[in-house]
């Protein structure tokens, strides 16, 4: 047990910070008189996330290492994705700090620390080197998310969102766990690297394939990939906007982290059935590609019919998940790089959009796109910012979305034979997505004012989130070198696979 004491606990600094801040905030919330505003708690939580972000950044030069018998691994993958998760969490917390709902419960302190706990789960997912910790941390994320979705206790939509989320999430968990049990059974260990090693020697191709498919389905639920996406729009619509932002960005990022950690680590070298010499993961490529294609198509086509901003963004996030899945399905050598860049861009533009939607919903009490109509007339800057985020989501050059999409495309076609069909589907759905993003732009800039009552001032938290996201979106669009320099620090995740 001595190695436990000698392990380098400083590797977990970001996690410790998040945990400590969450616990302290919980205690403060409990000790506070009921009538005091809980808003400072959200600011505190955001500060905590930023601190943890700093700590993670400080850890970047650290050598890859694992502690706690290999259950906690700090490799470049973990660092890179923790940066994303923490940045997303911090922005979501800014939105929480600026959240000012017209209906629903009073502003509870729970929001701040539940979000931090969920963030902690996501971070641990990125750092897990063991099936068990992976599972527990994912559950920490999802269970906290269920509560976040239902936090507006008196609003029926919120209850419904929470209920649907629990049911679908529960099924997903069970399916994934069932897959995990087979993996465990075939290898007798829960350490991911060890599993990967032992799977190479296994001769149970069918059980292995079953395990893989179960895991893939379970993860697809979490990613809201078609056909396991039905819950996402309802949950996104019913949940409070900051929670929706968190689900759409941080949870989705965590889902991809899970996908990579789980499937790639374990199955990259596992043998496939039949005479095909390639690995199981590669032999499953067509299945993943179909999943990706369906996700892109359904996500963007159904988004066309939406008038609710939250639902629209929900379907748009499904479509984006499809793009990311396509990048995953390509399995080129630049896969993780391109996913990271895409998720970074996705984070910036989506968080910004959600911050503005949050303001609209707070002010008008509805999330119909009417709320945007003619926004340009009295809030030109806000409208411009939203326009920027929408252009970025559409992947127009000069914004973060373009660079990210370009990278994905390159990843899709870099190998011979390239995934031209996926690339084509992605191109077509991108054009379809132009329609609904530009629909909103039309609402923003072309139409006359919907209501005479101007929107109120934007709260500090929301403004901060919008400004940060807008700057980030532009910076990544014009000087993507900034992001690529960060990415270069991770040395292409060479230490991801054992």
């Amino acid at each position, binding site marked *: 047990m001595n190695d436990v004491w000698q392990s380098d606990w400083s590797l977990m600094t970001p996690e410790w910070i998040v945990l400590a801040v969450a616990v302290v905030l919980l205690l403060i919330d409990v000790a506070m008189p009921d009538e005091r505003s809980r808003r400072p708690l959200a600011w505190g939580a955001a500060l905590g996330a930023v601190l943890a972000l700093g700590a993670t950044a400080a850890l970047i030069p650290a050598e890859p290492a694992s502690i706690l018998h290999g259950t906690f691994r700090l490799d470049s993958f973990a660092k890179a994705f923790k940066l994303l998760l923490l940045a997303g969490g911090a922005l979501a917390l800014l939105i929480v700090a600026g959240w000012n709902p017209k209906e629903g419960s009073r502003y509870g302190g729970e929001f701040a620390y539940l979000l931090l706990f969920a963030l902690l789960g996501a971070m641990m997912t990125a750092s897990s080197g063991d099936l068990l910790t992976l599972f527990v941390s994912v559950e920490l994320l999802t269970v906290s998310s269920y509560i976040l979705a239902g936090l507006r206790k008196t609003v029926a939509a919120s209850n419904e969102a929470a209920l649907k989320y629990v049911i679908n999430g529960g099924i997903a968990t069970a399916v994934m766990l069932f897959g995990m049990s087979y993996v465990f059974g075939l290898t007798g260990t829960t350490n991911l690297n060890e599993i990967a090693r032992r799977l190479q020697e296994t001769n149970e191709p069918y059980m292995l394939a079953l395990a893989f498919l179960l895991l893939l389905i379970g993860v697809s639920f979490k990613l809201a990939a078609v056909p396991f996406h039905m819950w996402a729009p309802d949950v996104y619509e019913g949940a409070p906007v900051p929670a929706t932002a968190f689900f759409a960005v941080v949870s989705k990022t965590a889902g991809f982290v899970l996908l990579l950690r789980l499937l790639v680590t374990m199955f990259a070298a596992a043998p496939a059935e039949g005479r095909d010499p390639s690995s199981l993961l590669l032999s499953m490529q067509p299945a993943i590609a179909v999943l990706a294609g369906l996700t892109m198509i359904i996500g963007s086509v159904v988004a066309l019919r939406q008038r609710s901003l939250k639902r629209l963004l929900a379907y748009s996030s499904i479509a984006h998940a499809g793009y990311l899945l396509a990048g995953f399905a390509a399995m080129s*050598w*630049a896969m993780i*790089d391109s996913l990271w860049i895409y998720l970074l861009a996705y984070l910036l533009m989506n968080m910004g959009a959600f911050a503005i939607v949050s303001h609209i919903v707070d002010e008008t009490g509805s999330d119909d796109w009417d709320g945007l109509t003619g926004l340009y007339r009295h809030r030109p800057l806000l409208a411009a910012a939203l326009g920027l985020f929408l*252009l970025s989501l559409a992947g*127009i*050059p*000069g914004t973060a979305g*373009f*660079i990210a*999409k*370009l*990278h994905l*495309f*390159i*990843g*899709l*076609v*870099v*190998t*011979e034979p*390239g995934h*031209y069909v996926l*690339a*084509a589907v992605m*191109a*077509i759905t*991108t*054009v379809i997505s*132009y*329609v609904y993003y*530009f629909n909103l*732009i*039309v609402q923003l*800039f*072309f139409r006359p004012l919907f209501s005479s009552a101007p929107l109120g001032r934007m709260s500090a938290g929301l403004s901060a989130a919008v400004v940060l996201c807008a700057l980030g979106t532009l910076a990544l669009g014009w*000087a*993507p*070198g900034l992001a*690529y320099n960060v990415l*270069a620090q991770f040395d*292409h995740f060479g230490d991801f696979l054992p």
Partner: protein
Amino acid sequence: MTFLSLLVFSPLLGIGLLAWVRKTETNMIQWIGTAATVPPLLLSLFAFIQSVRGFPLERLDEAHHWVRLADFPFLTDAAYVIRYELGIDGLSLLFIVLTAVLGTLAAVASLLVNEEKKGYFMWLLALEVGMLGVFAAANFIWFFFFLEVTLVAMFLLVGKWGGFERERAAYSYLLYNGFGSALLLVVIAVLVARTGTANFALLGDMLHHPVAEGQLIAPLTSEARHWLLGGLLLAFAFKLPAVPLHRWLIRVHVEAPPPVVMLHAGVLLKIAAYGMIRFGIGLFPDEFRAFAGVIAALGVVNILYGALLALRQHELKHVLAYSSVSHMGVVLVGLGALNEAGIQGAIFQSIAHGLIAALSFLLVGVLADRWGTTDIRRLGGLAASMPVFSGYLLTAALALLGLPGLAGFVGEFTAFLGLFAKKPILAAVGALGLIFAAAYSLKAVLNVTFGRARGSQPPAGQSEPREAVADLRMNEAVPAFILVALIVAVGVYPQLLAGQLAAALETMMNGLGG
């Protein structure tokens, strides 16, 4: 900031200044907006003159490190380095001059736009940046970048400042061109992914030379090259537009504000021609042969289809829109000929049609402003009330039908000359279109100018019937005059253009193997 960057981005200064002007000061906005188009004009003219005097354009090339997309150990140091690269040759310089000239003229003509002028000018300038950038880019990524700037700017300009069905037009513009762009992006991605570079020159090297081909990151089979070229051509066919992908063009030409159409018909359509020449022939000369026949045939279809439909239109804007379709067919014909004359003709035609279309739409804009309609059946006898205007309109029509001595003739003649050498029958059929062109342009214009005066229609904003509608004002006459002068100049002295093109054409013909 060096010369080309300055040239491309100088309109941004205007956008910056406009941001500080109050919305209500329309005069101020008009002045600033117009002034902002002058620097690129001066710079491009300067470059043109220098180039004519023998200044090597390569010395204007700019390259700065921008981003490195991947630096895996197994890649060379130069792989996936995307640089900010601008560079021009004679071909692009011509288009840049065209853009700059039309940009200024469109800005002057924008006096007709009254609504939300500030936003209008900001986007108009953005559009100009995009167009200049497209021609100045020496790198696929930046080419695409500027192309998409034009997409967004056009969407907003059409959708917000257009006519009655503006949003529909904007969406159809967005969708068609979006598909084109997306397709182009896929092609670009394949090229960048496989070669590790986006620079045109380097790409050309890598794709043509067997030695350099070994440096490809992943091999490009000949089948793949055919597909790539096909994709590229299809992408530009959306933007050109080639029949049957032309519906958006009609809507945009009808609905967009006339100054915007000046730019659109004058420059944006030419981006497609430019792209086909630069990338199609420039990067895939061998594969291009396989497509030449199809392209030529498509060109002929374009010519005839556009011309026939133009003949049947009652709306002047429709006539001009279909004539654009028809004229872009000539570009395709030239390209399909795939010999020096053909390509030169295609380029000439692009420039010439740019000037002619700009002139036509300038005049149509005036017409719409004065009479509130551009319906041929409701106009007539303007030669009496608006003599100067009618004169210009007639000139435009003559240029449009390809009267020798005017710009249109040079392009059409050379292009068909090229095709006759290769496919005489096709060329003969296509030439029929020229006759139709004479028919529809004269029919439309003569009806308007000399037909029976139908002065009963009051113009927009005025209640009593007009007896004497104001003729061309100064700010309309000057651009019109400049355009006519240019049309005549090109028509009479095509060497003005050809001299610039010689070098570029030579490399291209070398690529084609003779």
